[in-house]
């Protein structure tokens, strides 16, 4: 009875693939049962839209006349430094990069109003970006300074390449201290004043394929409004964390390295974001289709918010000082209700990952597949899972 991706793709090409989102599958299975639904449904689509700091894009801006070697020189996009440790006109702009003169937290808390993520959003939106390049000059690359507008349509390549995206679950942040703190999990009010979480929960891609049985290297995905691919596991990929009986990790676990052609993406799904007192970043929209090859895979996509658990972590002391232990476990259903209980106190909750936009992504991907515009791919290699014995390590500081 097991289906193959090849068979599912044939159905997609014929326009007869049966596709639902990771939300719709929950009620569907409750009504019709696993066996029937596993036969009927071909693909379950997932989605997420949240801040993903380990993101960036590499660009080939094209050669000037005379030629300039930006490589090992300096390059700025809208006054934000880009990485130039590549060849002459290849540069990489990272999501969290800031202008040299951004005051950061000198006047606390800093605003971080415009960073690499914002440049990427502007580039994708088709805006002109100021490129300033300073080079040391060589015989073959004599030009030493360049100041020009560039636009995405004129670039040879503009490729989104994100070393760590799509976190499989994350923490719930609280603040036990008596002062407001400014973190990447938002503004946290003192004495358990609020709690923030960052996951799409039951719609989240890797929470619907917890052991990475279908997602692997080469998986075609919705990325930033266009097509992208999973190309590796992401940094800090940590498959060995404690999982629930349903296989869903209860701690931040797997991550994905993804890439795609920026030129076919949209600023609707790639947005610069500013976290007061913390920094700038890029919010990325990702959607991953899960082929329902057998009943086991279907069972994983049935996961609902009530049974996905996250750890409550104190970000005033425990997180920065790397002190282990959590203040308790809460489910995403509890988090989305607006209130959780921590240390016998009722704590209001807010999110950082947009569930509404995750839903839109899952719906969009569903529509693309149904219209025959998106075929699934067979991974060429797996993402390391629980047999891999990969453990997330801290930096072992050794004095020089």
């Amino acid at each position, binding site marked *: 009875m097991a289906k193959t991706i090849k068979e599912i793709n044939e159905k997609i090409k014929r326009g007869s693939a049966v596709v639902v989102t990771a939300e719709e599958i929950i009620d569907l299975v409750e009504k019709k049962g696993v066996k029937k639904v596993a036969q009927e449904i071909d693909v379950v689509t997932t989605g997420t839209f949240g801040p993903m700091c380990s993101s960036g894009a590499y660009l080939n801006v094209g050669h000037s006349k005379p030629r300039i070697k930006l490589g090992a020189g300096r390059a700025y996009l809208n006054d934000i430094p880009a990485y130039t440790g590549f060849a002459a006109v290849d540069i990489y702009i990272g999501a969290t990069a800031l202008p040299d003169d951004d005051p950061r937290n000198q006047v606390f808390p800093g605003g971080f109003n415009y960073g690499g993520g914002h440049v990427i959003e502007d580039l994708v939106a088709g805006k002109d970006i100021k490129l300033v390049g300073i080079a040391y000059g060589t015989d073959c690359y004599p030009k030493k300074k360049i100041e020009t507008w560039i636009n995405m349509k004129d670039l040879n390549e503009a490729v989104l390449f994100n070393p760590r995206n799509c976190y499989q679950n994350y923490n719930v942040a609280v603040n036990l201290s008596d002062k407001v703190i400014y973190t990447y999990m*938002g503004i946290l009010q003192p004495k358990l004043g609020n709690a923030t979480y960052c996951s799409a929960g039951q719609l989240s891609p890797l929470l619907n394929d917890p052991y990475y049985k279908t997602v692997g290297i080469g998986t075609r995905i919705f990325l930033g409004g266009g097509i992208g691919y999973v190309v590796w596991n992401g940094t800090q990929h940590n498959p060995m964390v404690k999982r629930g009986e349903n296989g869903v990790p209860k701690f931040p676990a797997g991550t994905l390295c993804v890439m795609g052609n920026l030129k076919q993406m949209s600023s609707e799904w790639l947005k610069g974001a500013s976290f007061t007192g913390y920094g700038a970043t890029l919010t990325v929209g990702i959607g991953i289709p899960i082929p329902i090859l057998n009943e086991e895979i279907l069972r994983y996509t049935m996961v609902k918010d009530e049974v996905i658990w996250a750890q409550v972590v104190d970000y005033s002391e425990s997180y920065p000082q790397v002190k282990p232990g959590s203040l308790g476990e809460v489910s995403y259903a509890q988090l989305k209700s607006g209130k959780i209980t921590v240390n016998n106190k009722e704590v209001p909750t807010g999110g*950082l990952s947009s569930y509404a936009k995750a839903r839109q992504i899952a719906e969009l991907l569903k529509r693309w597949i149904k219209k025959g515009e998106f075929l699934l791919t067979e991974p060429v290699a797996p993402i390391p899972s629980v047999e891999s014995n990969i453990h997330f390590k801290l930096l072992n500081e050794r004095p020089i």
Partner: protein
Amino acid sequence: MQKKRIVLTFPPNLVEQPITYHLVKDYDLMINILSARVTPKEEGKLVMELSGKKRLIDEGLQYLSNLGVNIQPLAKDITWYKDKCTHCTACITICPSGALALDRKEMLISFIKDRCIACELCIPACPYKAIEIQF
């Protein structure tokens, strides 16, 4: 009975005068001060809600205007940009008055202007600058 929310800017020469007292005494207006920023010998700013008879509110505002107080309706000052909002919901635990509200079924944010007290706490909380306050 009418309610009006306004932003009053007092020039330096008026900062030390008991002006809001006259709104209550002479124009029978109930005033609720939502926020105040008063620095002696500099500009003063008050965000307040006035309640009373329409005619008396108008007369009271005319009195302020004649004195040189700048009056701006509060509604103009806070803008929620629906297109910039990603509905991440980071703002809802920060907003003390429920002006930023969440429909938990759709998981969509809406901005209920009447509830806004212009406390400005939401502004640093929104990663996408979807809320702007112009004073």
